[in-house]
Structure formats: C-alpha cells, structure tokens
C-alpha cells in the first residue's frame, strides 16, 4: 500500500471572518466552526481561542489533540467509520496541516486531566507547546451523562479538524513524503536479506474515558489484527481516552505515530517493515490472555524477526505489555518494549506493576511521578478549578506565588509510551 503524505506548513493562526489558508496562515472564522460544533445537539456552546508557542498561556484540562488532515486521492476519508464513511484508508494522497493542532479542552469529569503550557518549564515536557493550537472549549447541554459528553466533545474535535483539513485540499504541499509497504509475498522478494519487523501497538480499551476506536470499532471488542502502517496516517485509530494525560495517546499521536515513522525511516534499508499489529488492554483477564496469545500468533504467522511494542496508560496495561513481550519472545521474535514509569516522587518505587526477564530491551518515557514546578502563566484557556484534584496534583499544588507544584503526569504527552518525546529515565 502506498500513501503520499503532503505537508502544508501552518505558520500562523488568526481569527477572521472567513475560513481559509493563505500563504501559510490559517484564518479561522469562529462562526463557521461554531456551526460545525453545534451540529451535535448535546453541545450548547463553544469558545475558541488560539495559543501560540512561547506565549504565557496554559491550556487545561485537555481532552484531545488533533492534527487536521484531508484525503486528496484514494479510497476513504479522514477518520473512517467515525467522520468519513467506512472504507479502507492508507493509500493515495493525504495532506496534513503541519505545525498546528486542534485542542479540545474543558471539563468532562471533575478530575479531568491534562496541561499544555506554551512557555516555561512545562513547555519542555509537552510536545504540544510546539504547535500553534486552536483550542475549543465545549459547553454541554444540562444534565448530560458523562459518556455522552465525552463522545460529543470527541466527535466535535474531529469535525472541526476535518473542516480545517479540507481547506488544504487544493493547496500545494510544502513537502511530500511517500510511505509504501509491499504485500507479504512481495516483501520476501524485494527485501530478501532484511529482518522482518512489525509494530505492535497496544490500545487503551477499558471503559468510559479509557477507550480507543479503530475504524469506529471500540477497541475492547477487537481481537488483535493487522493494519497497513499508512492506515493510521488517515485516522484509522482515534482516541477516546481522557485519563492519564502524560501517557495516553491523543489522536495527534495516532496520526503521527512515531514508531511507524521511525520504522519507515529504516524500511528497505535495514529492515522490512511488514505491518502494524494492534491489540488491546482490556480489564478482563481472559481477554488479556486471548489478545496476547493472538498477538504472538500473528507475529509467528507473519514470520517476523523483531517487533516494537508500545503501551498506553498506567497499571493494568503493564500486565498486557509483559504478557505480549513474554509470548512474542517465546516465539523467537526479538522484542523491544516502550513504556513509562511510576517510580514514586522519590524515584525509589517499583516502576511497573508487572515484570519479566524476557523484557530485556526497554525504552522508557520517564518517571511520571517526578515533581516539577510550573510557573504562573498570564492566561488560562479552560479552567484551573480542577488542578488540585487531578492525578499528580494535591491540595498543596498551588504555591504562594501562583506557581504549581505537580507531578509530570499532569502534562499532556510528557511520558508518552509510543516514544513521542525525548524524555527518559535511568
């Protein structure tokens, strides 16, 4: 499957009366976007704001981060089975608005997490301090159930991102890159000497605020399956995950999955990147056994030599990670796992909830319990009302000078377990 991915670099975002992209500037008409958001009757209002790198702005609580994209050629559309109709994506031509993101923010539940600081210490830890962010804070209708609200905000973010992406449909990309993987049989003849490598991605799939969707299917209902790695670039996987800000995968990370990209960098040179295998992280232990059995089985059936396994979330998924690693290694397939750590504020506790000697090659996104001080910033998009209650904060969080003493886990993307950032620990 072959996908041509064109980058349209967005250098500025401004509010205007008309929605358009002109010489690298995205002009946003609030009214036009408001209409898109209010299509859902569960939402009664929405506020838009812009946060730029280096500004004294804090966005919190953050639900999702999305990169606008548009399908220019080939089957299907962005976010198949969710926004676009169900159709297999990942081939043809797609454009992405680079350097910007749509951020959905605001309270969904009372312990809503996620902080993006555009400047200061916190900005070093979140990858989304580097993007021009169009922030939308939705207000639900009264007496809405938590899961209805989550779904409404999730989908509103995607609709807005797709609307913005469509503005680029007729533009000429600043940069184009081609991603192509052969079929299984072709791969054997094209790259006879290269090790066969796949990416095993574990998807958060535990329940309300902990869900991921694949072509619109709730990931806890899937059995492990294989994707062409270009499918995620068209939004085959989306995030419905609102918990554990530091190590959840926002939709932006699914679209720009760094393991997929870094494996493509080696594809045809040192490895044959065969496919992406997706599996889940269910609550029910028998599901864990079935899914890890199947993941290992797929690795064997595909004659793989090596895999990278990435995790999402805290606690429960540690068990899936170790089960996957152990069983895949037992099939003779070399495994590297990516995780993050909860080693306590002093760094002395056991980092993971599970362990096995087979996990001898581990990449870590760092200790999420590490304490940092975030400076007081001039402007807050969203609200600081919940900041003392979220994971990694406490009633002592707000210091006298207005700065915040928090654990890294409050920061969106800080210890991402797909290896999206450079943070690590030893």
């Amino acid at each position, binding site marked *: 499957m072959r996908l041509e991915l064109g980058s349209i670099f967005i250098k500025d975002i401004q509010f205007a009366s008309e929605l358009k992209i002109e010489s690298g500037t995205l002009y946003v008409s609030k009214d036009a976007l408001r209409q898109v958001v209010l299509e859902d009757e569960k939402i009664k209002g929405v506020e838009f704001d812009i946060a730029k790198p280096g500004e004294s702005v804090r966005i919190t609580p953050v639900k999702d981060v999305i990169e606008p994209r548009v399908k220019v050629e080939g089957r299907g559309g962005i976010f198949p089975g969710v926004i676009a109709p169900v159709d297999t994506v990942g081939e043809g031509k797609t454009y992405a608005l680079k350097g910007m993101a749509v951020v959905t923010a605001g309270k969904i539940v009372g312990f809503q997490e996620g902080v993006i600081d555009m400047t200061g210490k916190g900005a070093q830890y979140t990858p989304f301090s580097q993007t021009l962010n169009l922030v939308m804070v939705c207000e639900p209708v009264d007496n809405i159930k938590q899961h209805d609200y989550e779904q409404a905000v999730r989908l509103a973010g995607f609709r807005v991102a797709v609307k913005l992406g469509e503005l680029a449909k007729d533009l000429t990309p600043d940069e184009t890159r081609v991603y192509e993987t052969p079929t299984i049989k072709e791969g054997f003849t094209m790259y006879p000497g290269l090790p066969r490598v796949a990416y095993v991605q574990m998807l958060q799939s535990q329940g309300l605020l902990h869900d991921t969707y694949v072509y619109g299917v709730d990931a806890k209902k899937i059995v492990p399956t294989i994707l062409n790695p270009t499918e995620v670039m068209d939004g085959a996987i989306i995030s419905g995950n609102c918990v554990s800000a530091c190590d959840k995968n926002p939709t932006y990370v699914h679209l720009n999955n760094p393991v997929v990209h870094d494996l493509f960098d080696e594809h045809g040179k040192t*490895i044959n990147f065969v496919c992406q295998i997706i599996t889940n992280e269910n609550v029910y232990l028998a599901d864990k056994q079935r899914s890890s059995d199947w993941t290992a089985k797929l690795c064997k059936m595909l004659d793989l030599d090596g895999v990278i396994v990435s995790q999402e979330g805290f606690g429960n998924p540690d068990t899936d990670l170790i089960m996957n690693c152990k069983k895949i290694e037992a099939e003779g397939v070399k495994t590297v796992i990516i995780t993050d750590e909860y080693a306590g504020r002093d760094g002395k506790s056991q980092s*993971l909830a599970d362990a096995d000697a087979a996990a001898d090659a581990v990449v870590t996104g760092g200790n999420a319990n590490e304490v940092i001080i975030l400076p007081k910033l001039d402007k807050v998009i969203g609200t600081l009302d919940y900041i003392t209650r979220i994971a990694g904060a406490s009633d002592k969080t707000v210091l006298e000078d207005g700065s915040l003493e928090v654990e890294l886990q409050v920061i969106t993307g800080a210890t991402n377990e797909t290896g999206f950032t450079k943070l690590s*620990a*030893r």
Partner: protein
Amino acid sequence: MIKVVHYINQFFAQIGGEEMASYKAELRVGEVLGPGLALKAGFKGEAEIVATIVCGDSYFNENLEQAKADILEMVKSQKPDLFIAGPAFNAGRYGVACGTICAEVQEKLGIPVITGMYVENPGADMFKKDVYMISTKNSAAGMKAAVDKMVPLALKLVRKERIGTAAQEGYIPNGVRVNFFEEERGSKRAVDMLLKKLAGKEFVTEYPMPSFDRVEPNPPVKDISKAKIALVTSGGICPKGNPDHIESSNATRYGEYDITGVTDLTSDTYETAHGGYDPVYANEDADRVLPVDVLRDMEKEGKIGSLYHFFYTTTGNGTAVASAKKFADEFAPKLKADGVDAVILTST
C-alpha cells in the same frame, strides 16, 4: 566557603599498611592528606577541607559502634557542610567503612555525603542505595578520574542542585529513577535498540527489570521419618575458636564440620563467628541457631530418618549474594551425593 571533612584510612594517610590497620580514629584539624590534596585541587577554592579523619580499617570494622560514635563526634565538632570518605577503590574493608560512616553522618548530621569505590567493592552493594558513591577504577591509579567526578557531584549535593542520572554524574546506580532528556525521541531509540538486538549486538535497556530470584519449591518430602536431614546456617555457628576463620561479616568462606556423635552443642565446644547480632545467647548454647540437639532427639524418636554428619555454615552478615551462591554450588552436590533428602536452613 563550603567546609569539608574528609575521611581516609591508615594506608592513604601514609601511616602504614595492614600492620597499622588497627590505628584508632583520629581527627586532624587543618590537615589535608593524600587524596585530600587531589580533592582540594579539584575544588579550586570553592570548598575547603577543614579537617581529615584517619582511621585504621581493622579498627573501624572491629570496633564498629565505638568507631562510628567517635567519628561522628569528630565530624560534628567541625560543623562541616559536606563529608567525603575515600575513595576506597577495591579495598573491601575500607569501602565498607566509607559506606558505613557516610550513611551514619548523612542520617545523624543531615549533611550531604559522598564516597567513591570500585563497583565490586563489598561496600558498594551494602551502601549504594543509601549514599552517593562515585564508581571508580579498582586501584588508586584511578584517583584523578574519581576526584574529577566526586568534586562536581559533591558541590551539587551541597548546593541542592538537581542530581542527574548515574551515567551522567558517574555514581554507582542506586536504584533511584531519574528523568532526563535523551538526544533522540523514544521511538527512534526503540528502533535503534531493536536493530542492535536483531544483529546480536550489545544493547543497553533503559529500564532493567527487577530481578526476582525466585526458587520453585521442591515437592514435599514423602516420608520424613525415613529422610536424611542436613543442617545449613548463615548464623555463623562453628567449632570453638573458629578454626577456618570465617569472617564476622562479608564472609568469603564457609565451614564444613563433622557432627558425628555430637548430640548437643555446648558453650565449651561451639560458638558463633557472626558479627551482626548479639552473640551472647548463641555462644551460650549454639543449638539455638543450629538445632543439633532437637534433631538428635527426633532421630532417636524415629521422627526423622537421620541427621547428616556434616553441617555447613557461614555468616550472612553483609555477605554478597554471589558469594553465598558460590558456597552452595560447592556443597550442595556433596549433600546430594550423600543422599540427603532435605535441608533445614537457619538464619538469625
């Protein structure tokens, strides 16, 4: 100016070698000795060694409580901002002394401490989790390299600056996880690690899995009344006079002793070599640690088949796990060969 008290042994104070190892702890105010000179040069005037404490390695380890108390007072009298011990390189007792006194000063006086030693020095395993110790070469030839790392880390500790990872700062990994930014993002590091693993090349995991040294339990003894039982202890019980000189701590050897015909361990015949617990009750009646008397009774009553005619013993006091494993590797085959069905392991 940052005030430093430096601790060294008799050898580095140029008092003498093993023959002077019983040298009593001594405070030398205003003196800078041996490695202290290298430290002083390294501090470049940012810190000053106000006193040096010299203590013989044997004296320290054999008079542990007294030595700790005396040295603590000496340090306290100088009101320093920092305490440095060693570096001890591969000198075992010196390393243990450096670790012990650093931990003591840190806990009792609440000032930063630092030492340095070779990673295989028994003092490293004992104290690496308690105090910062720079990883040094195995001989004093590594003095300059050691001081080059000790000085900056010591200054950071005094200034309460953020301490980096073991690899960045040069200390022996202490199990504390420290965050830092890598050159490459995690996914790229994972790809690189996988390429190495696929090629059979060496790679370094970023998170070593905790090692669980689990031992699968053996099936139960079928008929205990016919079983041959052996006694093995880490409680240090040995014939009076400790004929094989089993060390009171950090044992490097074990003893094999024949108890054919022995029905009771008495204060005239047996004692403990262990230096890590109050030996009075063990010396009074060594059966309290190694229950030969009870097993002889059970043998007579037919409750067990027989008591094996040797027992094996060492002191578990700070003894390295690797040493203990080596001991068992040597004597376990003998137990098997002699048809021993079960072993009772006693500790203290």
